[in-house]
């Protein structure tokens, strides 16, 4: 479960998040949509402390951090919180000097202190799961974008996080490769992995989300089930955004 209360984030003079409240129950998939600059990526990055919120509270599983001006987190606190989250990046960010398999092994050995054999077993199982069992020994540059992103998902999964965070996971992909990545995410949703996904893929959002969150200008404008947001919304800003996206 993730509970976010009154979360604010300032970059210097600019307030990017203006008091976000969200509850994402365990095992559910939440999809965040909204125009660019709405703060959705910043919100996601706050959840694994790549950005440190200026104010508010984040509860994740049994961990809870309160932020305000006097909060000075130690790197131990940050790392321990981060271990409960996994992140999938828009630009994949695989480690280019390591093979697909080594990308997935690395954190297990260095962070989770597993043995090489354990880590490799898990990594191979995960590669199999994302449909890349035969690509284990390839370097990232030898893989297509879709394959790289699936390795990215496997790398995040290997740390056994309580929640997976996706930052526009298909935005950098050629259209014909989007499907293979979305399928992996859908499978994870079916297995009741808790997921928070920032995306522009509206059809996908409708299909996979338990909760759709529409953000604009640093606030949550509306949240609800896919049908509440996509079919039955009365909110003018939501309607405007959905119409704009549909025009494309």
């Amino acid at each position, binding site marked *: 479960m993730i509970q976010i209360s009154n979360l604010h984030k300032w970059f210097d003079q600019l307030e990017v998040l203006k008091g976000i409240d969200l509850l994402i129950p365990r095992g559910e998939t939440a999809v965040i949509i909204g125009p660019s600059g709405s703060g959705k990526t910043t919100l996601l990055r706050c959840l694994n402390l790549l950005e440190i919120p200026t104010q508010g509270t984040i509860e994740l599983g049994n961990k809870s951090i309160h932020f305000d001006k006097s909060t000075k987190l130690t*790197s131990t606190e940050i*790392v321990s919180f981060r271990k409960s989250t996994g992140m999938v*990046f828009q630009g994949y960010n695989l*480690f280019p*000097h390591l093979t697909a398999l080594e990308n997935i092994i690395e*954190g297990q050995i260095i962070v989770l202190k597993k043995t090489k054999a354990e880590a490799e077993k898990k990594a191979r199982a995960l590669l199999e799961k994302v449909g890349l069992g035969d690509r284990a020994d390839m*370097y*990232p540059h030898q893989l297509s974008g879709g394959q790289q992103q699936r390795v990215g998902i496997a790398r995040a999964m290997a740390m056994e996080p309580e929640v997976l965070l996706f930052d526009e996971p298909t935005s950098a992909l050629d259209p014909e490769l989007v499907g293979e990545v979305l399928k992996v995410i859908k499978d994870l949703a079916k297995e009741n992995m808790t997921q928070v996904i920032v995306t522009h893929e509206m059809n996908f959002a409708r299909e996979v989300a338990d909760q759709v969150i529409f953000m604009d200008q640093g606030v949550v404008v509306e949240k609800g089930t896919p049908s509440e947001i996509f079919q039955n919304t009365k909110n003018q800003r939501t309607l405007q955004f959905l119409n704009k996206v549909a025009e494309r």
Partner: protein
Amino acid sequence: MFSNQERIDRIIGILIDSFFPILKAGIQFTIPLTIITFVLGLILALLIALARLSSVKVLIVLAKFYVWIFRGTPLLVQIFILFYGLPSFGITLDPFPAAVIAFTLNKGAYSSEIIRAAILSIPKGQWEAAFSIGMTKSQAMRRIIIPQSIRVTLPPLGNSFISLVKDTSLAATITVTELFQKGQQIASVTYEPLWIYIEVAFIYLIFSTVLSYFQEKLELRYDKGIAK
């Protein structure tokens, strides 16, 4: 006077007789001096680069100061201060260790900038990916950033390694009988400076060529994982 033929024979004789003594001086002093100072210089450079990139203000200032001093003054002057200057403080160094220390301190300053630039060239996303799987800053540096930086540092470090081979000739000024010093000795007894120094240049060229070859091999080895 000698006839032309006699003069040519004499020069060839001198070149043949002097080749191995000069080469030997190179193998005995130039090569060890180069390799020892390069390795020590690299270790020093890594420490300076890490200090420079740390978030501790004192370390940053110290590292900057160090680079400022050693990059801003001539290597020859640094060597002279160490060898001829320090005895006035009661510290007397033998020529070879003095040369090692001077070259190490100088190389450390230059190479630290190469390493720092290489570390900064790694995209921010690599740090974030490392953080996202729970790594600490030092784990990310050691396991993700530095291994990728090595590839970036190889061409400029190779350059600086080869210039070090030649810079070691400055050790001649503090009586280390390395390659150049040996050449000087032979030139001064044979009165054939032109031919002897061409021979000296040729032997330096052999050393640099062999080292460039190894540099290329190393670069190829670290090229894995990089799209062509």
